[in-house]
Every structure is written in structure tokens, then in C-alpha cells.
């Protein structure tokens, strides 16, 4: 057990080092500053005091970044190992494929979470500086749900990288997640207005595609609605765990069948 934890710990540390030593995070940080600093200084029609638009823009950016980071890390997890041939010495060590998959997945999730935490801390600081209250129950719920979404996105990218080529998988997921995020809840209404194969297809997407919008508590955070009910929160947590687990299981089966 201890050895297993040590192995998984090493894989987690590797992902963290990779994320923070690549330039992605710093590029995102610079991009955020370029976008948000002028935005924070805007005085529309000369009126001052508006802050919610800034929070909304910052949170939307964070969602975009988290998707970019999690799909990037998740998609690269094994493809770079195969391309660089480092998967061979790794699997020659006393580590099973299952441990490797879980370790690398957890590493990617922790790395993505670290990036998310970094951006949420920045947002919280900016919120406090603008006189807002940020450490609310709703804030913690929002962070937890966002983190679970990241875990789901990493699992999807990981499973996708075994199923398709890395670029195809990342591109498809980069379309699917935002599409579900913005339009997922409207699919049943759309299905009602179409018929035949398309209706079936829309229903399949509605029931099977990952509902990114479940994890989106931006409105509650921006407008100070308060947290969601415990039952709903647990349902979303369960959804994320179940969906990520199913994707990891699929990835495990594909990894087992992968010819090395």
C-alpha cells in the first residue's frame, strides 16, 4: 500500500512539474492580465461601481482556462509517453498499468487543480480588493464543482487519447464541452422540434454526453444567490464521480488492449 502510494505520488509530482514548467500557465496569466486589467478599469457611460460584469468575465475565463489546461494535460498524459518512448522504462518498473493510469490521471487532475486554485485565489483577492465577500459557502461549492468538472474533463481527454489521435480527441472535446456548457440544458427542447434520426441523435447526446453545465455555479457566485441544496450538490458530485470513473474504466480497457 505504501509502495503504491509512493508510486502514485511520484506520478502526481511529475504532472505538477510538467504543468508549472511549461509556459502555458504563464501565457494564460499574462492573457488574463491583458484582458482583465483594462476590463476592471472600465467605467461604462462614466458610471462607476459595477463589479459583477468583471466577476462574470473572470469566471468565464477561468472556465475556459480550466478546460484548456485539463484537455491539454489529459490528452498529453500517455501520448507523450508513447511518442517519447518513456512508457517502456516506466512499465518495466514494478508498476502495473492500472497504477500507472490512476497515478497519471491523479497527477493530471492535481496539476489542473493547482492551476484552478491559482486562478481562484487571484479572483478571490481581486474580489476582496473590490470590497466583495468571497469566502462564502457558495464559493466553496462553486470551487468544488469546478474542480470535479476538471477531473471529468481530464478523464475524458485521457480516454479520448486512447480512442482517437490526440489532436482529434482534444478538438472534439474542445467542441463538445463548451457546447454542452452553453446549450446542454436546451437539448430536450431542440429534440422536441426535430424528428427522425436527428431527434434520436440529440436525445443520445443529451443522455450520454458530459453535462458540463451542471458544474457551473457562476451565476450563483456573481449574483450572490447562495449555495445549492445539499441533495443537488451531492447529485452533481455523484454524477462527476460516476462519469469520470466510467471514462477511466474505458481508458483502462483501451490501455490494456494497446499494443506497446
Amino acid at each position, binding site marked *: 500500500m505504501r509502495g503504491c502510494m509512493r*508510486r502514485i505520488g*511520484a506520478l502526481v509530482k*511529475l504532472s505538477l*512539474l510538467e504543468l508549472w514548467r511549461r509556459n502555458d500557465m504563464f501565457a494564460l496569466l499574462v492573457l488574463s492580465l491583458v484582458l482583465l486589467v483594462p476590463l476592471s478599469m472600465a467605467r461604462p457611460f462614466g458610471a462607476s461601481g459595477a463589479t459583477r460584469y468583471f466577476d462574470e468575465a473572470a469566471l468565464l475565463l477561468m472556465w475556459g482556462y480550466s478546460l484548456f489546461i485539463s484537455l491539454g494535460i489529459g490528452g498529453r498524459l500517455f501520448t507523450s509517453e508513447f511518442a517519447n518512448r518513456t512508457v*517502456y522504462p516506466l512499465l*518495466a*518498473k*514494478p508498476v502495473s498499468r492500472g497504477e500507472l493510469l490512476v497515478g497519471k490521471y491523479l497527477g493530471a487532475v492535481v496539476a489542473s487543480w493547482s492551476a484552478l486554485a491559482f486562478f481562484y485565489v487571484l479572483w478571490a483577492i481581486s474580489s476582496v480588493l473590490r470590497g466583495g465577500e468571497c469566502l462564502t459557502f457558495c464559493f466553496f461549492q462553486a470551487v468544488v464543482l469546478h474542480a470535479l468538472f476538471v477531473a471529468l474533463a481530464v478523464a475524458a481527454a485521457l480516454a479520448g487519447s486512447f480512442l482517437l489521435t490526440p489532436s482529434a480527441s482534444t478538438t472534439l472535446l474542445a467542441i463538445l464541452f463548451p457546447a454542452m456548457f452553453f446549450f446542454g440544458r436546451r437539448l430536450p427542447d431542440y429534440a422536441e422540434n426535430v424528428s427522425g434520426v436527428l431527434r434520436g441523435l440529440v436525445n443520445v447526446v443529451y443522455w450520454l454526453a458530459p453535462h458540463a453545465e451542471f458544474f457551473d455555479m457562476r451565476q450563483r457566485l456573481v449574483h450572490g444567490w447562495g449555495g445549492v441544496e445539499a441533495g443537488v450538490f451531492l447529485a452533481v458530485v455523484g454524477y462527476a464521480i460516476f462519469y469520470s470513473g466510467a471514462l477511466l474504466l474505458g481508458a483502462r480497457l483501451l490501455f490494456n488492449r494497446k*499494443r506497446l
Partner: protein
Amino acid sequence: MEDKVFELDGVSRTFGALKAVDNLTLSLGKGEVTGFLGTNGAGKTTTIKMLIGLLRPTAGTVRLFGGDPADAATRVRIGYMPEMAYYYPYLNVRELLAFYGGVCGMDKQTVRTRTDKLLEEVELVEAAKRPLKTYSKGMLQRAGIAQALLNDPDLLILDEPFTGLDPLARIHFRKLLMKLRDQGKSIFFSSHELGETELLCDNVAIMKNGRCIYHGPVDRLAGDGGGNLERLFLDVLEKGGVA
């Protein structure tokens, strides 16, 4: 007491219609150094992958230290270096070894001690803080050797270890392998470098079209005719076996 470090018994491996390894029987004794020779596509790498549990044979059995190489626990005693791997470019060699040490389940202190020793042996002390992306091919090979030796393995499996090494590094690496041989380690390596093989090995196994056409002592192969391994290797390949 185990006599054999590994045993391949009637092992075959097919990829669709292609028979990469065909009914291979091969073993390595404790403390032996065996060179694994053959032309490109002869089945050397496939055999090595079966040995370290990356591939399952379609027929026959592979035993590693008496166990199944697919079991992670069996691989505790091996060190493996692949042919030309590009190790994590954003790590330095110390971090690379710390990572592999963690994957092997080694404690931090042991990893640190082994790292200091190995970096001296592979002459990477001065470059230890540089990211691996700045390393030359030869330096990456040496880093690869260091990771393979990290857990002080009883069996060292090396896939084309001399590739990318300059003559000086080659001599140094040969000396390192000889030292390991003297320490009683078993070494199994594939190579196209017949000169190095001749200098290092007790035995050689020669593969052709997935079949082992010779497995025995180097001196027997070089033997009475007094010729070098290169000429005899070509003879064996042409004849399909040793008389």
C-alpha cells in the same frame, strides 16, 4: 536457489499475419552477460518487450526470476533501458531519477544516495541541474542507463545501449557494464555493435526472422577459425545456423 534469471520456453508472438517471434527458447543464467543479435526486424525488441511484461506471448511461457513478468512485483529486480527514449524534457536528471525512484517505491534517502553514485558513474554530475531537453543523444542515453540502474537490479535489460554514444562514452559505458558483470549482475542486451558485444558477452543469441539460430558462447562462435564476431555473425545469418 534460482539458476536462471529468465527463461523463454517455446515463445511465439504474432501481430496479425506477421510472426515476430517464432518458438523461441532462450534463458539467461545468473551473472551471465548475453548479447542479443540480429538484423532489423529479427524479433529482438519484441522478445525484450515480452521479457519485461509489455507484451504477452501468443504461445509459450516467459518466466522472469521464476515469476510472470506481467506481475509488477516480478519486475522489482530488473532494470530496463529502451532504445533512444526522450526523457521528460522539463526535468533535470536528478528529478528524473527521483521520479523513477518513486515509481519503483524506493524511499527518498536511498534514491538520493543511488543518484549521487550513478551520476558519477555515468558522468552526468556537472549536467545534473540542466533540463533534459538540453541534453545530447549520448547524454540522454547515459541518463537512461542511470534510471535502469537506479533500483540496483539483478538483471539489466538494454535495448541498443550503444546507439548515440560517442567513442569515448562507448568505452566508458563498456567499462561500466564490465564492472556490473564483475559484481555478478546478469545483463541481456540487444545490439548491432558486434565489437562491443564480443568484448562484453559470455554468450550471444542470434535471431533471424523471429527464430533463434544460435545461442551459445561467444568464443565457440568466434572459435577455432579465430575470426571476429562480425564475420562469423554474417556466416551464421547466411547459413541459418552453426554447424
